[in-house]
């Protein structure tokens, strides 16, 4: 059995090598697409397996002779990092194999360069997960941001994409500053920036809280927690779909990883009230994200907002875990934690699947606007059916994987009334209500997403020429979809892996989530249990039986004819709901969330047209004023530079006098 950390490191190195190999023949789509990306996918699979093996083993450290003179690179592979490495490897494998078929030449950056950026992105994410000292962490963290920035700006000719990239890198940088400060506090006077030193450091409660909040800010900015989310709906649509898939599916999770690492590992014993902050922001983000997703008309923006929702759910779970841990209900804390990790992995698969699905649609139709899509299930059945799995999963429907994690989280929430704190016991269950609301809304969003893109009549004539995905892309989609199904049907085994994390954090000594291969029992049997396999079996059985009976007793004749539609003859594509139309009830109900400019036609318009632009209030109320402030300061400062040499001499003169006065 090779050294765990080293084996992971080698695989990451392999990724980097593959990336640089792309520069050998940068122009050749064949080399990049047919050789390098599949190789990258293989490495991903290998990484996932290695991580699975390593998770069971004790934490293992490695020091490289690189880095700062008195702070060489420390690496460490423990349960937490292994879970996320598994996530990275498994999800990226699917995305890479998809990307192998997806990337064509002639689109912005040359394939070879793209290959380099893509694999450096992967490798840096892996290193973030392995890093065991602040410097390496920050280094890889920012490298991750940088490489993804270049990937986002692949189509840099479009100004809005440049804007997106700028916004993304800026907020990433600000967040990184927060993280850096957090580390600065965490070292707690030892001025050793290895994580070991931070684990050992004894912080006063106040400073610990500061460190936690700083970390929450920094990682929240990366994860796209409202109100730091503004970059996300810009950057995700801008990037090529496989990249969006990685960013949304994997990169956001590294932020979650960081938060968990800091909170439970470096800070050690979290205080209960810390949890309320991520809880509150998480719940808000969940609702906010899904509501805005429902209002979107660009399919990738829609998915981006849905990512914000899921990030919200994740942070809610983290907050819940912290609260439970803080008040000493460790079993429940570990339950919440497992739910969070499970959802993280689920989301990696579901969201990557959906994003690459939109990628195929984009390639087939050159169209991102939902208003110009529709009926693709006939033209591209593979994409349609595989994407359906992702859509159902992310809508949290049993027996797919999305349901499992939300179910576990709700189970944890249900026990929250026992928290021995005034009000909390009463307020936390309301959180469950909000999560339920978010889940239901997600269902709404996904019906809109899927129905408008794949069902109904094509809204543009050009869609009739849409072609289905190539075989490599199908493999990618299939892999991810399979992940959704397997994770949904056999949660127990995976939970075994996840439970290593709370054990590593010392929340629990032994596994607490019971059950066997076909069912999960979170707390105790009579309270709740869930057996997806059985579930699917029964439904499937009934369906099969029904089909059988119907066909036996009656017949299965069917004939085609024009749709009836209440006898209306001249039915055309424009009569079905547009994306706007489908989102209308949400806009109606959640009015206060939006800042809308509407152009309504008057009854007398010859050519009536209707336009609505949906903005976020956060922009107008927080971000723009900030920029304005900086501008004003800059203008004030610029006044110093008046061009008159006498003035400049005066400056020196006064400076001289002042300083002389100082030493006088």
């Amino acid at each position, binding site marked *: 059995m090779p050294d765990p950390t080293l084996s992971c490191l080698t695989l990451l190195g392999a990724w980097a090598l593959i990336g640089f190999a792309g520069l050998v023949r940068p122009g050749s789509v064949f080399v990049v697409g047919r050789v390098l990306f599949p190789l990258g996918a293989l490495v991903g699979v290998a990484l996932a397996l290695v991580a699975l093996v390593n998770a069971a083993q004790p934490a293992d450290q490695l020091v490289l002779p690189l880095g*700062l003179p008195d702070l060489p690179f420390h690496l460490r592979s423990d349960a937490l990092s292994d879970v996320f490495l598994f996530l990275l490897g498994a999800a990226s494998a699917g995305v890479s194999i998809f990307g192998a078929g997806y990337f064509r030449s002639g689109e912005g950056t040359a394939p070879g360069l793209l290959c380099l950026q893509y694999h450096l992105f992967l490798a840096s994410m892996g290193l973030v997960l392995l890093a065991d000292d602040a410097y390496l962490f920050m280094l890889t963290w920012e490298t991750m941001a940088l490489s993804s920035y270049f990937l986002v700006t692949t189509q840099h000719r479009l100004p809005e994409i440049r804007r997106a990239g700028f916004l993304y890198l800026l907020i990433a940088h600000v967040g990184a500053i927060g993280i850096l400060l957090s580390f600065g506090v965490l070292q707690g006077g030892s*001025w050793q920036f290895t994580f070991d030193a931070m684990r050992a450091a004894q912080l006063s409660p106040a400073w610990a809280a500061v460190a936690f909040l700083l970390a929450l800010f920094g990682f929240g900015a990366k994860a796209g927690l409202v109100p730091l989310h503004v970059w996300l709906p810009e950057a995700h649509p801008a990037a090529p779909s496989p990249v969006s898939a990685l960013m949304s599916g994997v990169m956001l999770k590294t932020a979650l990883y960081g938060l968990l690492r800091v909170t439970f590992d470096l800070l050690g014993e979290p205080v209960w009230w810390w949890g309320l902050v991520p809880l509150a922001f998480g719940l808000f983000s969940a609702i906010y994200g899904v509501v805005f997703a429902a209002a979107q008309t660009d399919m990738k923006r829609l998915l981006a907002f849905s990512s914000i929702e899921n990030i919200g759910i994740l942070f809610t779970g983290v907050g819940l875990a912290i609260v439970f841990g803080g008040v000493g209900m460790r079993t429940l804390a570990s339950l919440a934690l497992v739910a969070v990790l499970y959802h993280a992995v689920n989301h990696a698969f579901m969201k990557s699947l959906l994003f690459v699905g939109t990628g195929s649609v984009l390639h087939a139709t050159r169209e991102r606007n939902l208003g110009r899509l529709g009926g693709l299930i006939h033209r591209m059945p593979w994409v349609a059916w595989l994407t359906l799995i992702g859509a159902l999963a992310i809508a949290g429907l049993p027996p797919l994987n999305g349901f499992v994690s939300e179910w576990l989280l709700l189970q944890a929430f249900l026990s929250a009334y026992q928290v021995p704190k005034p009000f909390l016991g009463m307020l936390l269950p309301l959180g469950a209500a909000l999560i339920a609301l978010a889940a239901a809304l997600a269902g709404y969003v996904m019906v809109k997403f899927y129905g408008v893109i794949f069902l109904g009549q094509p809204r543009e004539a050009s869609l009739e020429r849409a072609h289905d995905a190539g075989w490599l892309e199908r493999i990618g989609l299939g892999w991810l979809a399979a992940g959704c199904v397997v994770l949904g049907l056999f949660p127990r085994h995976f939970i075994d892996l996840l439970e290593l994390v709370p054990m590593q954090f010392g929340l629990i000594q032994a596994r607490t989530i019971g059950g066997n291969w076909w069912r999960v029992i979170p707390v105790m049997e009579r309270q709740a249990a869930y057996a997806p396999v059985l579930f699917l079996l029964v439904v499937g059985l009934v369906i099969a039986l029904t089909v059988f009976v119907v066909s036996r007793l009656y017949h299965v004749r069917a004939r085609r004819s024009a749709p009836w539609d209440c006898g209306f003859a001249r039915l055309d594509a424009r009569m079905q709901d547009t994306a706007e139309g489908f989102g209308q009830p949400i806009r109606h109900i959640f009015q206060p969330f939006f800042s809308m400019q509407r152009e309504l036609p008057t009854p007398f318009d010859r050519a009536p047209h209707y336009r609505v632009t949906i903005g976020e209030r956060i922009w107008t109320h927080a971000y723009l004023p900030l920029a304005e402030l900086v501008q004003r300061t800059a203008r004030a400062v*610029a006044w*110093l530079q008046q061009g008159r040499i006498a003035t400049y*001499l005066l400056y020196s003169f006064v400076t001289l006098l002042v300083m002389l006065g100082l030493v006088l």
Partner: protein
Amino acid sequence: MELIVLLAIPLAGAAWAAVLGERPYAPEANTAFSFATLIAAAALAMRVIGEGSFSAADEQFFIDPFNVFLVTLTAFVGFTTSLFSRPYMRIEFEHGRIKPRQLRLYHSMYQLFVAAMLIALTSNNMGLVWVAMEAATLSTVLLVTLYRTPASLEAGWKYFILCGVGIAQALFGTILLYFAAEKVLGGEGMTALLWTHLNAVKGSLEPAVLSLAFVFLLVGYGTKVGLVPLHNWLPDAHAEGPTPISAVLSGLLLNVAAYAVVRCKVLVEGSLGSPLPGRMLMAFGLFSVVVASFFLWRQRDIKRLFAYSSIEHMGIITFAFGMGGPVANFAALLHMTVHSLTKSAIFFAVGHAAQKAGTQVMDDIRGLITLSPTVGWGLMLGALAILGLPPFGVFASEFLILTTAMRDHPWATPILLLALGVAFAAIFGRVQPMVFGETSAKRLPVFAHLGLVLMLGVFIPPSLAEWFRLAAQLIAGS
């Protein structure tokens, strides 16, 4: 021996160029001289690493780890810049923006400038340091006005007057230093201005005089470092001169000035035994960082933009030296190195970019990456590096500086971070559209520098680290 060679080569180059500087092979010769200088510097460095610090010419010159690394850096950047200036100046020449005479002037002054800086760095005599600094100024003044445009003349004039006045203050500071020193060392011998001797007896120097002297020295050399509010000459001079000159001004001259300030600070701190000088440096540095970062926001001219960014980084370095202590000094030295490498690389890229686009106005420069990928990537990576994004070395030094600041002066950290954030938004917001986007219409040095910076970010060679450490201790005065 190496020392004499080191100083002789550029002087000879200057003399030669003064006569034959406009010959067609002049640029190559210029490069050759710079390369020879680099070799000599390397030899010198080898020797210092081998035998430790030594002094020469009855102690008028003195080499220790601190200045020898700056010497090497200077020689290196001087060499790469000469490489860059070869094609650059040729194009300028072909566009008829400069005449043979000016080319001659350019080459001779270039060599003279390098020589002056080397003397300033290696000299042990504070008076001589002053003389060399002044010489460096004078040799560049005429280069700033090389194009004879009104703007360039104005810039040159401001440069001349402000730095002249500043340097005069420095001279007065030096006099006061001497005045204090001769009490201890006696005026007759030449030793009273020798830094080594001063350093030896700094404890017994008269505090009142030294504090006074330090004020004058700081204001004087600080003007050349470009500390706000003494910086006003800097953006103009950078923007109007030929780009190679901007590169060496930003990359080298500022360093040398900072070096002088630090030398003085060591003495004064030793004599006062109070943190006052350090505090002054920190105040200047912080002020410069903040103000410069806001200046960045309103720039139109690409070279002005990066000139202000130089001010910002000089502020950071000054701040770090002000904090003192081995780590901070180490970080400051590292920052000096990476800054001069990165910034000169950026100016190389900017030079090519401006020549390609035919303008220095940023709004008119678009889509470099399609116009010329190497320039585009060079500018983009350089900008990202200077903004302190990993894995580039600037991040390493800023990481050290910030963490030290967090420990020793927590109040300063938020200010620094604010400034860095503002600067990031400003510079990156300008650079991105220039590099990317739709255009409306062999560069080794850039990537050589960036490569080095990249390496320093991930891995600092032990020898270099040791070197820095020695220097840091030296400055820390232990």
